[in-house]
């Protein structure tokens, strides 16, 4: 019996070892690091400093709060727009329009693009003088001199639009898959009962789509909190600090100032925020399901 049990464990042992090595060890290592001061420029010695890094992040570093604020001011509108446009496109594609396959393939192109490439494309599009966006606006007769990436009033919007362009297709695909899994019988019986299209959408489509919506928004929420690459290419956190997100700031702390202990603490704070927001979101979504 014991031999059998050992044999069984030995089958999963390689997986456990790999998991420990690539997931658990870095987690414990970085958590330990977050309680130390470790500056690679000064030799990289670990000096235990308890909760000092966390204290500094929460009470002594204004840039943490401003970058968190930016993360949400960029992330929330972006997710909302992605959801609304993604849902609209999914509903459209679910109706069986002509050229559906080609349209779907074209629509999902942005999501297949590396965010760095997307950022570079948009950086060119946003150029004040030579960019296509101002060019189109000028050809429409507007005196467009919009400094998309350097005007403090426009920079966040520019980042949001780039994010929406890149990630709406993901939202669309998840919601389209959800729509296609809803059985046709539900719609037919509602129609027989005389329900209007709006009623069908409100009472059948949306409730049955709740789980895909939750998954799609949750994926995007976690991604938005980690928003880094587009910022790195488009604005580097500027103008001023208008688009400096918490991930970008953590990167600067770790790889520009080489304060690895503090960077680890910031990463853990980010993880905690992500977990709390995810739990809250799941609770809100599932509470409604009880009705």
């Amino acid at each position, binding site marked *: 019996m014991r031999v059998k049990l050992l044999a069984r464990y030995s089958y999963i042992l390689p997986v456990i070892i790999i998991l420990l090595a690539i997931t658990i060890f870095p987690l414990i290592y970085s958590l330990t690091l977050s309680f130390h001061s470790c*500056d*690679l*420029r*000064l*030799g*990289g010695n670990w000096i235990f400093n308890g909760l000092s890094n966390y204290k500094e992040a929460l009470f002594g570093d*204004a*840039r943490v709060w401003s970058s968190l604020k930016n993360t949400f001011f960029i992330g929330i509108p972006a997710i909302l727009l992605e959801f609304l446009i993604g849902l609209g496109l999914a509903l459209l594609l679910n109706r069986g329009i002509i050229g559906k396959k080609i349209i779907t393939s074209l629509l999902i192109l942005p999501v297949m693009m590396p965010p760095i490439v997307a950022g570079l494309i948009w950086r060119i599009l946003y*150029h*004040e*003088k030579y960019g296509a966006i101002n060019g189109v606006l000028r050809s429409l007769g507007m005196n467009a*001199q*919009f*400094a*998309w*990436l*350097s*005007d*403090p009033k426009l920079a966040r919007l520019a980042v949001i639009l780039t994010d929406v362009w890149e990630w709406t297709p993901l939202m669309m695909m998840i919601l389209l898959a959800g729509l296609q899994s809803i059985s046709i019988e539900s719609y037919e019986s509602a129609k027989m009962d005389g329900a209007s299209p709006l009623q069908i959408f409100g009472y059948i489509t949306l409730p049955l789509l709740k789980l895909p919506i939750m998954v799609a928004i949750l994926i995007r929420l976690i991604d938005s909190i980690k928003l880094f690459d587009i910022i790195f290419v488009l*604005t*580097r*956190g*500027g*103008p*001023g*600090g*208008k688009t400096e997100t918490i991930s970008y700031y953590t990167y*600067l702390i770790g*790889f*520009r*100032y*080489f304060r690895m202990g503090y960077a680890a603490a910031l990463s853990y704070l980010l993880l905690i925020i992500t977990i709390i927001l995810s739990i809250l979101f799941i609770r809100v979504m599932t509470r409604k399901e009880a009705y």
Partner: protein
Amino acid sequence: MHKKLRKVIMLTAAFSMVMSTYGGLAMAAEKSPFAGETVTIMVHPVPHATGIYMFKDKFEKKYGIKLNVIEVPPESLYEKAMTEFVAESGAYDLVDFNPAWIADYSRFLEPLGPLAKRYNLDFKLDDVMPIFRMMNSWAGKWYAMPWDGDTHMLYYRKDIFDKFGLKPPKTFEDFLNIAKFLNGWDWDNDGEIEYGCASYLKRGRTYWWFLGRFAGYGGNYFDKDMNPLINTEAGVKALKNLVECIKYMPPGALNYSYMELRTAYVKGDVPMCIQWTCVGKAAEDPNESKIVGKTGYGLYPGGKTMIAGGWQFGIPKTSKHKGAAIQCLQFYTNPENSLQIVMNPATSLDPYRKSHYRAPEFRRAWPTAGEYLDAIEANLRQGFPDLEIPGAAEYMDALDYELCLAYAGEKPVKKALDDAAKKWNEITRRMGKEKQKEAWLAQLEAMKILGIGE
């Protein structure tokens, strides 16, 4: 007879070809004990890297050493190199870096003196301008060899200034007034609206455009007890002036970095700017410029010129090809090759050897090249160097962040500078005040010896 003669000629030709090939190889192997090795260079991308490509074939042929050129975006050079240093990867044999980082890098770099001596290589250091020599040494040791001599200077449109009876600005108040006057109208009659001035305002390197002004108003980084002076009256005046100038810059100027600023000037969108010396060459290059022959070169307004010290190469301690690397470094920075590199407008690398400023070839490169070279030397004489103490990159980044907040109107000027000073104090405390003070006093002393930045 005819056939015989042809045979002899062909045989002789074949023999000479074989001999020249083998002879060449033998010569390469003979000349360099490192033939067959590969030197990996981490370099600031094109246009800088063009300097390497210019002589790559010649170097490889001459020494039999291969060059593997890796271009890294300028904003990432510091972190990329530091990451490799800390990881002791030995990925690079030559790293291109800014003198301001020398205090952080020195721990990881091979001192060049003993290495040059071991391989009997003469870098003709007496020919390098003293300010640049100062900036590539740390704690009395020589760690890097410059291949670019960056200093700011004033560029202005001589034709436009003459047309309106304007004189090159001597102070930043003059600069502002001229910018106001020339902003928002078509002063060159090309059918387009022009602007008053432009500046590098993008996050990352804008601090240089502030520091020159700051020094001109009498500012310096710290006092002798390591207290920041950035938020003193000089700082406030300098930043107020810069923020005021933004009103007279082209739309989108807040996102201008080196290339956008260079383009705005050479395409004739602005009548004046403060830029690195390489822009003077670009302005005379008809492939790029719309204003060939129209540039005047001036002293930095305010009386102090920001000197970043250009870019320089060091050899990491972890390099496995130190001999080949120093051979390569000597080849690229010798007076003859370096002159060709700094003369080429496509490289955006600037003169740094005394012989560069005096080279008849360079002074004849375009009709006003002599004035250009003299203006660089004059600016160097009133230079204000980069901060060169441990953590300099972090001090500058903290300042840069606050400057950008002030540009964007997110913080009042004084508050932004106060916050920068607060952050500087925090960095000093974290890095160790006494150690930082010692490094700063050493820099002050070096500046004093050179008669600059006091």
